């Protein structure tokens, strides 16, 4: 050995005493235990060298070399008794130990001085070279030297060979472990990068990468990965590596071919010779392939795809070890497929929602819990004039409120953190102009956490303008009707007044023959006046212009007043009036004037259609309601007539107007007034058997809108 300085002392030959033997046994046991317990290559080498250096064994110069697979040099790994370069490299053919490397056998040199190939500086002595083998392949050598010639015997060869055998086994084991660890590390790195890729790569590209790695790591010729398509229940080949054609896109039915087979059984399969296999698919008939191995890709028990590895070398048949490695791969590919599917789905969902928000005609803005803008949609940008980049990060209420509306807006925002809100208000655009909006706010809750509200703004400028226009038009109509009514009544007053005046004058002068005609003028004039008043009333009710003037009044007073007013009408056709209303009936809180109007209408109607009969008014109290029943013994009505009774301008028969007079509006007005007071009026009648109208009103009128 070049530049080596021998420090090894001559080995003392010891007598085989019992105690000495026991020492050796214990030393050999320590050696074995040390080798078996080593975790890596360096540990094994140190255990060998230090174990053999044990005093009981007495080896004083030991050096363990490994062969560099590339340069074939021997590289020193561990040593005892050597003070030179600890990473000494010895050229392939130099030194005595080259022989042990070359033939894999133990070599003993009893006297080194006789060997031409001896490269060390030792002037004399002996050397043993023991090969180190892993799985039958020589990977290194143990060099043991002594300064004495003939220092080693058969017992030494036995001990040293046993030590090297144990070291070889241990080395094979740690190499296998480190190889697996390396693969595992590679997988981990691979799938880490895949997870990162999933964000911006389509699945087929990810699968291609993974498949290529699987083919390389399994030393296969080629392979395929198929994805299970839930919709068609087919396997769709999504990545293919070196199988003689690009098979991507090919569809396999469940049960078809090796992947179809495992997709059905959900168990992996090894096929020693594909073309002798009964399950082969015609799609692979021209395939130069021998051994095939396939495994299902599963998420739990759900099939997401299949993977196949192929060999075109007839000598190579897949075995249990290959299947074990493939089974390391397949769950990760399954996860990749599932992740990609979930990612695609979530992307679609995200896109769907962003389309919804983006295309919404309603302005939408999302806030964080600090009330600053997280995002807004194009409608928001259009409505308020802020671009999203300007709005994001700003406090919303700083952007779009005015002095006057800020308080309300902040209130809304604060409330919307916890619960939905809705309201109408005015907001400010970027250019300072104001816009009337309907505001809706809802809290957004993700995984139970309030992440800030979402607000929707709907521009109601047009709506408000339309409403104001409609209100103005309605006011104009009401004003018109009021004016019209006044304008019509003024000349009518004159007509009625002069008719009266002339009648009085005529009577004074004894001209009695004019009286009937002048009476008719006055009568027709009064009818016209009633019509005008009724039309005005109805218009006002229908325009929502009549408001209840609710006050408390004794019911009995209204009844007395109405019956007194209607008495002349009742008497005109020789009817009798029967009133049943006790003092105990009490008071109501409602619109007295309107009640009087309704009762007068019904009583005057009854009087009109009854001759020589009885008109009844009965007031009763039923719980929270007051009932006024107005009955007559008159001509009655058919069900068909009753049905149209309360419609405006409808009397039971057109001929009735001419015979009985009236506007045909009285009942329509009565019904609307009753409903305005929170009640109603109904009719019960039979032809020839009289009619009863029943008014039912709440004793305390509710605030009711127009009919």
């Amino acid at each position, binding site marked *: 050995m070049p530049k080596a300085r021998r420090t090894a002392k001559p080995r003392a030959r010891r007598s085989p005493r019992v105690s000495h033997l026991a020492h050796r046994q214990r030393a050999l046991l320590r050696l074995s235990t040390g080798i078996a317990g080593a975790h890596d290559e360096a540990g094994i080498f140190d255990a060998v060298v230090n174990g053999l250096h044990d005093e009981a064994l007495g080896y004083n110069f030991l050096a363990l070399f490994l062969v560099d697979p590339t340069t074939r040099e021997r590289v020193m790994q561990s040593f005892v008794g050597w003070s030179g370069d600890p990473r000494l490299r010895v050229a392939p053919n130099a030194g005595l130990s080259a022989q042990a490397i070359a033939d894999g056998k133990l070599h003993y040199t009893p006297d080194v001085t006789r060997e031409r190939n001896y490269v060390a500086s030792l002037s004399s002595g002996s050397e043993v070279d023991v090969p180190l083998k892993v799985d039958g392949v020589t990977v290194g050598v143990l060099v043991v030297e002594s300064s004495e010639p003939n220092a080693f015997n058969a017992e030494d060869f036995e001990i040293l060979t046993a030590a090297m055998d144990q070291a070889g086994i241990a080395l094979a084991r740690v190499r296998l472990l480190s190889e697996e660890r390396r693969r595992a590390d590679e997988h981990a790195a691979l799938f880490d990068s895949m997870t990162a890729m999933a964000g911006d790569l389509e699945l087929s590209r990810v699968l291609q990468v993974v498949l290529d790695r699987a083919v390389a790591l399994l030393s296969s010729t080629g392979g395929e990965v198929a994805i299970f398509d839930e919709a068609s229940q087919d396997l769709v080949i999504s990545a293919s590596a070196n199988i003689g054609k690009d098979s991507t896109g090919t569809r396999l039915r469940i049960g078809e071919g090796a992947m179809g087979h495992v997709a059905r059984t959900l168990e992996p399969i090894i096929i020693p010779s594909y073309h002798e296999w009964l399950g082969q698919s015609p799609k692979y008939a021209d395939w130069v392939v021998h051994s095939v191995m396939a495994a299902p890709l599963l998420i739990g028990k759900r099939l997401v795809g299949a993977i196949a590895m192929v060999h075109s070398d007839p000598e190579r048949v897949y075995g249990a070890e290959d299947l074990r490695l493939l089974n390391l791969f397949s769950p990760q590919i399954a996860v990749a497929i599932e992740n990609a599917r979930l990612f695609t789905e979530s992307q679609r969902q995200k896109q769907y929602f962003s389309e919804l928000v983006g295309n919404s005609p309603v302005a939408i803005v999302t806030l964080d819990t600090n009330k600053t803008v997280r995002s807004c949609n194009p409608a928001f940008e259009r409505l308020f004039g802020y671009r999203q980049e300007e709005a994001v990060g700003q406090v919303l209420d700083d952007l779009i409120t005015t002095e006057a509306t800020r308080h309300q807006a902040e209130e809304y925002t604060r409330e919307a953190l916890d619960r939905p809100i809705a309201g109408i208000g005015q907001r400010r655009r970027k250019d300072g102009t104001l816009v009337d909006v309907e505001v809706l706010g809802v809290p957004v809750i993700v995984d139970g956490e309030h992440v800030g509200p979402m607000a929707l703004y709907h521009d109601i400028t047009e709506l408000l303008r339309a409403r104001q226009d409609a209100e103005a038009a309605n006011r104009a109509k009401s004003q018109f009707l009021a004016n019209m009514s006044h304008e019509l009544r*003024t000349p009518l*007053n004159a007509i009625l007044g002069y008719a009266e005046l002339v009648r009085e004058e005529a009577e004074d002068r004894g001209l009695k023959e004019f009286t009937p005609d002048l009476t008719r003028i006055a009568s027709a004039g009064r009818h016209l006046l009633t019509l005008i008043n009724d039309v005005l009333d109805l218009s006002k009710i229908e325009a929502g212009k009549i408001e209840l003037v609710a006050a408390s009044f004794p019911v009995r007073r209204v009844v007395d007043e109405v019956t007194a007013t209607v008495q002349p009408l009742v008497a005109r056709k020789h009817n009798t009036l029967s009133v049943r209303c006790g003092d105990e009936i009490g008071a109501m809180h409602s619109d007295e004037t309107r009640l009087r109007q309704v009762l007068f209408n019904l009583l005057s109607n009854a009087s009109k259609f009854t001759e020589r009969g009885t008109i009844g008014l009965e007031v009763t109290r039923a719980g929270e309601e007051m009932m006024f029943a107005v009955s007559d013994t008159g001509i009655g009505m058919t069900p068909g007539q009753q049905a149209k009774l309360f419609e405006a301008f409808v009397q039971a028969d057109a001929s009735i107007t001419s015979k009985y007079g009236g506007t045909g509006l009285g009942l329509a007005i009565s019904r609307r007034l009753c409903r305005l007071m929170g009640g109603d009026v109904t009719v019960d009648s039979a032809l020839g058997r009289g009619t009863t109208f029943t008014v039912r009103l709440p004793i305390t009128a509710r605030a009711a809108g127009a009919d």
Partner: protein
Amino acid sequence: MPRILLVEDNEMNRDMLSRRLIRKGFEVDMAVDGKAGVEKGRAGGYDLILMDMSLPEIDGWEATRQLRASPETKTVPIIALTAHAMAGDREKALEAGCNDYDTKPIELDRLLGKMNALLPPKPA
């Protein structure tokens, strides 16, 4: 003979009503708007004033308030006449200082009843 002031802007109504009242034995003076009504009312020493509410210049309610504010006419009975049979008109008229209120078209007997209730009893 009771002296009546009729404040009414409509010529026909003024003519018709005054003639009917004269026939019933009243002495009737007339004014055509609220302003003239107030002036005549203060100067005339009338027994009763019939006041239309819809008047040019100043309306009947304002005219009534002005008459009530003058010592000469503070206690003269005033009856409001209105074409609108609207809820609230009666209250509005009484609030302005009218003693009573009647609606057009005039039913003479009804109006006379209200007038007689406000006029001093006729000398026997």
